[in-house]
C-alpha cells in the first residue's frame, strides 16, 4: 500500500495536473506548484476524499507545503481514527 506521502503527492499531481516526479516535500502549493485559489480548495477536498477525513477549512488551507500537508493529514487521520 502506498504511503501517506505518496498518496499526498499523487493527489496533488492529479489536481494540479503535474508530473508526480516533479513534486518534492519542500514545494509550496502556491508559489512552486502554482495552485490558484479554487485549486487550493480542490486540493483540500481531494485529500478529504482520499483519506476519508474531515479537515478544518481554515487550518487545511493555511498549510503551505507538501511536506507539511503530509504531517497535517497524518495528525488528522490519527485524531479521526483512520488507518494509515
Amino acid at each position, binding site marked *: 500500500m502506498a504511503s501517506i506521502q505518496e498518496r499526498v503527492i499523487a493527489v496533488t499531481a492529479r489536481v494540479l495536473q503535474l508530473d508526480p516526479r516533479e513534486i518534492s516535500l519542500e514545494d509550496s502549493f502556491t508559489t512552486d506548484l502554482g495552485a490558484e485559489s*479554487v485549486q487550493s*480548495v*480542490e486540493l*483540500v*477536498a481531494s485529500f478529504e476524499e482520499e483519506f476519508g477525513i474531515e479537515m478544518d*477549512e481554515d487550518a*487545511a488551507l493555511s498549510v503551505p507545503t507538501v511536506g507539511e500537508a503530509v504531517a497535517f493529514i497524518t495528525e488528522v487521520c490519527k485524531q479521526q481514527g483512520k488507518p494509515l
Partner: protein
Amino acid sequence: MSEQRESFPLVDTSQPNLLEEMFDYSLPPKICFDGPIVEYVDGQPVQFDPQTLRSRDIFITDTTFRDGQQARPPYTADQMVRIYDLLGQLGGPKGIIRQTEFFLYTHNDRLALDRCRELGHRYPECTGWIRAVEGDFELVKQMGLKETGMLTSCSDYHIFEKLKFKSRKECMDAYCRVVDEAYENSVRPRCHLEDITRADLDGFVFPFVERLMRMSEQVPEHMKVKIRMCDTMGFGLSFPGASLPRSIPKLIYKMNKQVGVPSHRLEWHGHNDFHKVHINGVTAWLYGCDALNTTLFGYGERTGNPPLEGAVFEYIGIKHDLCGIRTEVITELAEYMQSIGFPIAENYPFVGRNFNTTRAGIHAGGLRQDERIYNIFDTTKLLRRPPRVAITDKSGADGVALWVNEYFRLDGREKISKIKCHKVARWVMDQYEKHGRMSAISDEEMEAKVKELMPHYWNKYKGGAEASKT
C-alpha cells in the same frame, strides 16, 4: 488655528475596535457631531448646534404624486392608493412621513385623493397643490382640504420671463390675494417659493415672506403660512462659506432668524441636477428647516427630488433610533413600483437588485466570515434583503460558498464550507477560463449546478420543498 503636528503612536491590541457605538449593525450608522458649526452670515459668525437635531421634530414630506408624477405617465387611482397606504405604514405612528400632496386638476387626481383619505390614516396628511391663481383655489375648496401648496415663484426668471408680471409688486400682490382667499376659506397656505436659489432674496423673497408673516398674524397657529423653499434647478449648495442665494445654511438662517419663520413652518424641496439633492435636503434639516420634501426613489421632474427612502435612513441615523419607522416597507414599495413599470437601477441604494451584492471573491470571503465587513447594516432585518454575491470569474470559492449558504438559508454552524462547494467553484472557473464566458452567472444557472454537483445538500435542504411542489 494651530498647525502644529501631533504624534499618533500605535495602540496595539489583540481585540478589534469595531466602533460599535457608531456602527450598531442593527441600525443605519449613527450620525454624530462633536460640537457647533460656525457659518458667517452678513460677515458675522453664527453658531448652529447640530446636536439639537436629535430632539427637534424634523420630519419628511412627500411629493411622489405631484413632482414625482410630473416625470412619468399618470398613476391610476388604485396605484396611488396602494402607494399611499404603504407610505403610511413606512412612516409609522409618529408620522415621520407627515404629509403628501396631490394634484387636483383631473378626475383621476381627485378620485385618488378621496380614496386615500377613506383609508383613514392619520399620516401622511393629504394636502393639495395649485398654481397661485384665484380660479385654482376653487378646486381646493371643493375637495375640502385643510392645507394646500401654491406655486409662488420668486426668481425674476419666473416673475418676469415666465409669468410676465410687469413688476415685482404686481406679482407679490397677486400671490397675496390667493393667500387671502385661502384664509377666507379656512385653508392653510403653503407658499412654494420656486427657484429661490436663483432669486433676489433681499429685493423680493424676504419682503414677500415678511408680508406673508404679517398676514399670518391674523390667523390661529394651525393656519399660519408655511414656506417651502424650492431649489428648482438644483443650484443649492451645502458648503460652509458659499454665497447667497445658493447657500442653504445662510438661506435657512435668514428665513428662520431674520425674517422669523419658525423651523416647523419651513420646508426644503430640492432637485438633483448637480448630484446634490440628498445632502442638500439633509443640510436644510441641519440648519433649522424641519420639513424635508421628498419623492419615492427620488423620481421627479428632470433629475428628480430628494429620495424619500434616503431621508428615512438619514432620519434614523440622526435620531439613533427607528422611531417607529418600518424600514422593511421600503422593499415592499420598491417591489410594487417595479411591478407597475417603474425602473430602479440595479445599483440604486437600499432597493436596487445589487445594492448589497458583492462580486469580488476577496469581498465575498469577508462577507462569509462576518457579513458586517461588506454590508452597510443588517439589511436582512431592516430591508428583508440579505447580502448577496454575484457569481463571476472574480467570485472564487468564497463567493460560491456564500451564494450556496444564502441559497439554502444556512447560518452559523450549519454553514457549508467552501471545501464542500469545490465542484461548483470549479464549474464557475471553467466557464470563464475554458469557455471564454464574459457574462455573470445567473441565479438560475447556479441553482441547476448546485442541484447537479451538490446533490446531498440539495436533497437535505431543498428536497422536501421540491417534493411538496409536485
